[in-house]
């Protein structure tokens, strides 16, 4: 059931996310216009780049500069690398420009190319002339689509939403239903696993209870041993630190690994009441380790004592919840203590 749930959930996420991501018809049409403008502009840029690259070696006639092929030394400045005064008027002219129609923009674009046609390219080599012609043709091709893309109207949020729902809503909701079905199956599978464990509930509670009790005994023993030393030597620090390190890595882990089972069995609230003090105990054991590294024996002892007390609180919480009915209405587990 668990794997069926995961499978249905995955399918549901794929369907709902795919149809959720689908563009509304108007947005798609706008992306077509933008794409055409962008790709043609890129083609024109590439053609211009190829034309300019032909001047990399050899003479650079004035027409090259007039066609916008900056000499290499000026390229850094052109890209804004070198600090230069900001022309606020020019920056704002673009932003505050009066709205133009597509025809006006197209006219302006074509007009901007006119001076290039007026120049005499005969000083260029045949290859350069061919590259220049290709660039101008590509630039001409890009003007009208660029103008069309620049005047696209904003698609209002409500329009986007209603169009998208009309176009993709049914399949999207089918996907959402699959997500919910898969998630519910997953929850049922987890509960069933917890119930199966709860058939042997007393044993499971005892397992966790026993683990907690053993852990508490170990921590309390360490705390007592540490408290008995008045004037610890370096070897005592090292020995206790090693024991604390072993506790951290080997004794806490199995208890903490039981978290998903405890959560599934007792529910979120009781789980928090059991694992809250358990985590606090873990933090105090970590504090003991730090204090020992810093050669502060009293803090190490106090931290271990506090950890033992917290573990006792965790045991008490487990005991309280395992002696009351679980959310799964399973037979009550035995008191682990």
């Amino acid at each position, binding site marked *: 059931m668990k794997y069926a749930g995961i499978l249905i959930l995955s399918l549901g996420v794929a369907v709902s996310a795919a149809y959720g991501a689908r563009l509304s018809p108007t947005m798609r049409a706008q*992306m077509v216009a933008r794409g055409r403008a962008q790709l043609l502009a890129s083609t024109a840029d590439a053609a211009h780049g190829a034309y300019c690259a032909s001047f990399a070696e050899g003479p650079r006639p004035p027409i090259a500069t007039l066609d916008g092929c900056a000499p290499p030394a000026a390229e850094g400045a052109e890209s804004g690398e070198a600090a230069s005064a900001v022309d606020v008027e020019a920056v704002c002219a673009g932003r505050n420009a009066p709205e133009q129609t597509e025809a006006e923009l197209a006219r302006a674009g074509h007009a901007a190319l006119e001076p290039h046609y007026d120049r005499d390219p005969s000083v260029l080599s045949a290859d350069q002339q061919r590259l220049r012609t290709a660039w101008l043709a590509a630039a001409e091709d890009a003007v009208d689509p660029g103008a069309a893309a620049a005047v696209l109207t904003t698609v209002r*949020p409500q329009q986007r939403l209603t169009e998208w729902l009309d176009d993709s809503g049914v399949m999207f909701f089918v996907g959402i239903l699959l997500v919910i079905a898969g998630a519910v199956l997953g929850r049922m599978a987890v509960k069933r696993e917890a119930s199966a464990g709860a058939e042997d509930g007393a044993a499971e509670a005892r397992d966790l209870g026993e683990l907690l009790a053993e852990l508490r005994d170990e921590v309390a023993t360490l705390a007592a041993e540490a408290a008995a030393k008045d004037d610890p030597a370096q070897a005592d620090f090292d020995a206790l630190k090693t024991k604390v390190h072993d506790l951290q890595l080997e004794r806490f882990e199995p208890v903490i690994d039981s978290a998903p089972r405890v959560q599934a069995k007792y529910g979120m609230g009781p789980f928090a009441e059991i694992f809250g003090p358990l*985590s606090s105990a873990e933090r105090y054991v970590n504090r003991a380790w730090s204090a020992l590294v810093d050669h502060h024996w009293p803090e190490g002892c106090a931290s271990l004592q506090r950890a033992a007390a917290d573990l006792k609180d965790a045991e008490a919480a487990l005991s309280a919840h395992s002696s009351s009915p679980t959310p799964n209405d399973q037979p009550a587990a035995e008191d682990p203590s």
Partner: protein
Amino acid sequence: MASPQAPYRELTPAALVVGVVLGAVMTAAFVFVALKLGFTLPGSTVAAILGFAVLRGMLRRSALGFLSALVATKDSGTIVETNIVQTVASGVNTASAGVAFTLPALFILSLCDPELRGFGPLPIVLAAAGGAFLGIVFIIPLRKQMIELERLRFPSGIAVATLLKSPGAGIRQAKLLGGGFAVAALFHVLAGEVSWIPEVLHIPEEIEIGVMLGVPSYIPIAVGVSFASLGAGLLSGRGGLPFVFGGMLAWWVISPLMVGMGWAPTLMDMGLPEGTDGYDGFIQWPVAYSEMLRPLGIGILIGGALSGVIASAPAIVAALKSLNAASKSGSGSDEMSSRVLYGGIAASFVVLFTAAMLAGPDLGVGRALITATVGTVWLGLAGLIVAQATGMTDISPISGMSLIGVTLMFFLSGGNVIASIILGVAVSMGIGQCADMMSDLKSGHLIGATPKRQQLAQFAVAWVGAPVAVAVVYLLWNSYDSPGFGVAGASLSAPQGAALATVIDSLRAGSSQLDKFVAGGAVGLGLGIFPIGGLGVLVGLAMYLPFYITMTYGVGCFISMGLEAKMGKRWMGDTLVPVAAGFIIGEALTSLTLVFGRLAMGG
């Protein structure tokens, strides 16, 4: 070494002073970096390294003369005291991203619109400080849930804890940490196009395996050369798999599907011949990523977080009970009192409301009240999302959450740009604070720090970063050949601020990707029903990010799972954790060095 009679040093004046000084310096420097390059550096990791060096190194050895005599003793620099230094420094430094990614938009927009020039620094500083306090307050009841119950990994938190513990962890672990550091640093330098390294040794930041195999770029098969991402995956293991699954779903299922089904514009639609250059790239970025997956991912993040709040309600109630008990038990508890929580929310709300009134006097009391209220609620939810995402993957979607915050503020304030950006600063500061505080609390848990002391320290100094960051932004705007950033010809590009200015321009024109946010929200809510905590947040985050980041992280997850099965848990703790921590720390410190090296050389 500490004297046994003296109390164990933790929250001390030395730690606060060193933390504030480091944090203020980092804030000023990182604001500049953010305006220059568009990103900041990992605050906690850098703060831990610097704090470690100053408190445990220089001050303990009295190298800093009068400062040492003033704030430190020979006992200075215990593990938990150094943790307070990094908590404070990184807490102060959250202002660098919070302010530098939002406030510059207001300066940029005001350049060409005289109506937007009527703002002063006071409401900005108030909003930033109010947001910072709210971020810390909201995290108080979530600490138990995320760190003690869900046990989120917070890979950078683990890395910081590993560094702090290194003096006592033994030679072997120190070597492993150092080895991880060296490998990460080497690869980061080789991928960083450093001028003094021969070009033949340069490696790309992203290895596009798919492109080499002839797969279209809108089905990306690529990994990033980032040992920090790999380290985060190694530390996350199996828990990070839904994130990888989300990335695969987005880029290996949805992206090819939309091309195959004809949902994306085709070359024929555009009237262009087959094989036109740049088509695959156009489909991958402007169409699939910007218009489809990213907004959908933001929606899934929000829906997933909302359902997470509902699912975790009993545990949050238990945490609040614990805080109430702390109030009754007085100063003996490790938990912050619930009075601080409620009082902090009220006080921060008043500060935000005041900032809203000062920022937009024409808003009116009613609208300012609604804006401040929704801002506060959004900050809490976004803070939860960012803290969860950071906890599970080490990646925080702060910019996306800030963007939604500014959008909300824009509509609620009736299109008032000044008020929406200034409250956006508060939201950005707050959610950054949530992620940072939670990561610091994770480090604290691993070294046994007292949560209340960490939270008190951060409370005491959280406001410091706000005036520093705002002052640096003002200074840089008026420096060089004013305006100093964000427009053509300016010395600093301020890419994040310029992007936000563009978004606000489109909001003013009435544009918003509402359909994608709604669809994503529904998917996220549905995912929240499945019994894996944070599933919606992970899937949403994967859609929100470029795939090569997800892939590198995923490689780490799979390696970690394989190693755990073969070597066992003890080996993972003793060996893999220090190596992975070394990866994260190595990349952070190398980034810092490379960035400042380049800036020093005028790059």
